[in-house]
């Protein structure tokens, strides 16, 4: 991960120079200085390359003269804005990461946009190379420091500080999701949550004994086939209480984020086909996002009381595994007939959501889960599915998602779908069949949102299609996306820190 440095503009003596340029640009400031130092090579080069500053456009000019080894121009589009600046930074990263040093000539951007550009570059710089033992130094990125030249470096640095904390949260989530399932199992994942204590998060880990005593029957049923013990981790960040704002935020209860953390999902006895099963290491991406979001909030000292709860299990077939046909008693007291052991995520969420509500009386709950293949068939990989019993919360989430490039699409709920869960021998079945598969999954979860004592705003994000990317995009390299970290952080920043 590169260091980001904000400085007053001075032309670098070597390395790469990045020029973020908007449509209709004229070279000015550092860009102009560099152009003059190279005898006009930069202006000529951009002209020859047909570079117009359009969004998504980039071009590299090699050894243009002076001492520069390359100049990289990235387009900002017609009117530079936050997402555009992020994307420009992200686009620049792979073009300069082979240099030991690079400077961004960001004098044309205000402090917020300069910070956003640096943030974008950093998000793109993520790589998970811990298990590549033979990668040559040449193949690794060399850039250790990205210098951003700004006319107001102090302000840019201040604007970047919270973004840096968010990037840390994103990287943490990406690490967790990328880790192979033999390394990252429930106990290990819970231990990694402990690291959040350094940021001031209170971390509490519930093991199988505690879970049994409390009555997490649905979650334990899923876990019983694995040699790895389950865990539930409760993370509390008391940013509002600490700031002495306990009266405002505290009375309404904390905001609560709940994540599905199936560290590996074989499907259990209802086993999945072999092809593609390796992907099921990311079946804990919901939990990863919640942990990342808690790290982001604590890292930037957000003035909010937030709790994050993750249910961590491994879903394995074995002699002790749960069978199709088993009936389990959930923490809520409701019984569930397990028709398909591969619909395990909702069983985990059922208990954790119930627990979160009973213990914390939160002002709202958002759960994230790689829950159904059906959501991929419904929406593809551009949007995560958004299900909610509360229009206001849904709207806020959707807006936060759009703002950070983690798009959500509202999906329906309704009694007609709920009927598909009717069981002949228990309170409900855990699957409702193929038709409307994501909707009936959401209906199942909704049965564990306790509204007996009044409304409980809740939203469920089905991130099965967005947790993992098979292609690079501007700020998200291929692999684990950490989808949800930025979205939850933005939701809090926009609405719950006042």
């Amino acid at each position, binding site marked *: 991960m590169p260091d980001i440095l904000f400085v007053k503009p001075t032309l670098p003596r070597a390395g790469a120079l990045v020029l973020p340029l908007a449509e209709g640009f004229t070279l000015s400031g550092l860009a102009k200085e560099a152009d003059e130092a190279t005898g006009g090579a930069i202006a000529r080069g951009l002209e020859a390359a047909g570079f117009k500053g359009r969004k998504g456009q980039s071009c590299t000019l090699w050894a243009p003269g002076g001492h520069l080894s390359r100049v990289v121009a990235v387009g900002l589009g017609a009117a530079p804005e936050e997402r555009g600046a992020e994307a420009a930074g992200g686009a620049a990263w792979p073009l300069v990461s082979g240099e030991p040093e690079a400077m961004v000539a960001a004098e044309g951007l205000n402090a917020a946009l300069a910070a956003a550009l640096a943030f974008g570059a950093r998000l793109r710089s993520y790589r998970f190379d811990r298990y590549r033992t033979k990668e040559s130094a040449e193949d690794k990125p060399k850039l250790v420091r990205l210098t951003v030249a700004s006319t107001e470096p102090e302000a840019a640095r201040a604007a970047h500080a919270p973004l840096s904390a968010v990037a840390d949260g994103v990287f943490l989530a990406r690490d967790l999701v990328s880790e192979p399932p033999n390394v990252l199992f429930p106990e290990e994942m819970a231990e990694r949550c402990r690291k959040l204590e350094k940021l001031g998060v209170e971390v509490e880990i519930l093991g199988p004994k505690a879970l049994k005593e409390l009555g997490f029957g649905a979650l334990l049923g899923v876990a019983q086939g694995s040699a790895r013990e389950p865990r539930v981790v409760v993370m509390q960040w008391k940013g509002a209480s600490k700031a002495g704002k306990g009266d405002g935020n505290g009375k309404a209860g904390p905001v609560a984020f709940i994540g599905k953390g199936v560290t590996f999902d074989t499907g259990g006895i209802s086993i999945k086909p072999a092809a593609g099963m390796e992907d099921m290491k990311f079946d804990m991406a919901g939990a990863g996002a919640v942990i990342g979001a808690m790290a982001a909030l604590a890292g930037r000292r957000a003035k909010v009381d937030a709790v994050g709860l993750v249910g961590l299990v491994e879903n394995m077939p074995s002699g002790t595994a749960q069978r199709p046909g088993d009936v389990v008693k959930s923490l809520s007291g409701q019984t569930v007939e397990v028709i398909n052991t591969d619909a395990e995520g909702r069983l985990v969420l059922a208990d954790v959501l119930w627990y979160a509500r009973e213990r914390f009386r939160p002002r709202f709950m958002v759960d994230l889960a790689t829950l159904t293949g059906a959501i991929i068939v419904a929406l*593809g990989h551009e949007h995560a599915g958004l299900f909610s019993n509360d229009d206001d919360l849904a709207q806020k989430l959707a807006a936060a998602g759009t703002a950070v490039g983690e798009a959500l699409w509202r999906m329906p709920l309704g009694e007609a779908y709920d009927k598909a869960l009717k069981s002949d021998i228990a309170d409900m079945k855990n699957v409702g069949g193929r038709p409307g598969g994501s909707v*009936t999954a959401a209906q199942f979860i909704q049965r564990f949102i306790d509204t007996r004592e009044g409304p409980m705003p809740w939203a469920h994000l089905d991130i099965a299609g967005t947790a993992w990317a098979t292609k690079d995009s501007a700020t998200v390299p291929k692999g684990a996306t950490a989808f949800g970290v930025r979205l939850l952080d933005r939701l809090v920043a926009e609405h719950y820190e006042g």
Partner: protein
Amino acid sequence: MRLRLRTHLGPKAAARPRLLPWRADHPPPLPDMPFTPGTARWREGVAIAPGPEWRQAGAAAVAVLPEGTRHAVLDARALRPEEAVAMAMGALLQAPRGFRLDLWHRGEDALAPLCRDARAVLKGVLLARRLTAAPGNALTPKIFARRLRRLERHGIGVQVLGRRRLRAAGFGALLAVGEGSANPPRLVVLRWRGRIAAPPLVLVGKGITFDTGGLCLKPAAGMEAMRADMAGAAACAGAMLALALRDSPAPVAAVLPLAENALGAAAYRPGDIITTLSGLTVEVVDTDAEGRLVLADALTYAVRAFRPEAVVDLATLTGAVVTALGHHRAGLFGNDAPLAAALCAAGEAVGERLWPLPIGAAHRRDLESGIADLRQCASGRLQPDACHAAAFLSAFLGGSPPAWAHLDIAGMAEEPADRPPGAAPAPGGFGVRLLDALVASRFEDPHRR
């Protein structure tokens, strides 16, 4: 199926099973029956305590009538005219074939025109249902076109294009799909002039009279349901009939591509490249994604021939939309927010519910072809095929596309096993009432612009 108005009952009618709705503030007709919205109970007739949905109340009432009831009386004397008609409509939609309902009322003048419109819409629904229920051998494209000819007697213009004219005009996609069958394709165009001088609303309906899947053959189990793969075209035809019967002032046309997707020696193949009517070339990936091909040509034709104010297409298009929304809502795609909102509102009003789904940049990218202008669909498992299909269709609206909406009704054409009370029985005629309500709400005001 008949709906008759009566202001008093003779002794014979008085003896028939009676539907007796009442409101919370009225005394219950059965002393021991508490008011609970939606409940219906049988004694001498049926007493219903309807919730806000009078149509659903009517459907619920029919469900508890004694078996074999062919003729009943709806005592609507306590209802307002629009409530009475909504309830009658709900009852008749739910009732078995040939069911007769007498509507007993106090003689309000408002009732007669409402009742006339309801009969018109009911006739449209019945036409759509009959067409959809017809088996593949009894409803080939040719027979379908012949049956649509009969709409002429209601003042609807009917034009049928056969294979030769389709070839001359360049309907490459429609012809390719129809090639494998001994029953050649047709394009039927229905025109209702209305009285408003404005560009028409054009309905486009997928009319695959039987879908084997072609060379990409469907599994045998359940294939018989594919007789209903023309439910989109049937709904459009039913809506046209309803509009004509109630003499709608709005100009509306329907473009119905009819073909049988069979597998034969001349069938089109995966890998074929088709030149569509629009001029765009399409790489065929899966011959079972034939609906979007026939719709592509029909949409191009609709836009070119009518320069319409809006285009709405209905199609039993993808299994993906069933995975997404099940059997309770149809998928809604489009390029125009006001039109989409009007459709959603019309759907809620008549109980034919829709849910918006996205067409994203990634969906369009997925259709890039290495050899043609675009691919017909993406291959591989877990594909958002309903979104892909919609993205595909959007490419055939021409350079300056009109307001367009696409309804993927694959989940609604046939009856789900667990049909909730109030939903239409199979095959449902889904879309007729929705389109009728859309026209009534959005296209019948002569000063709307």
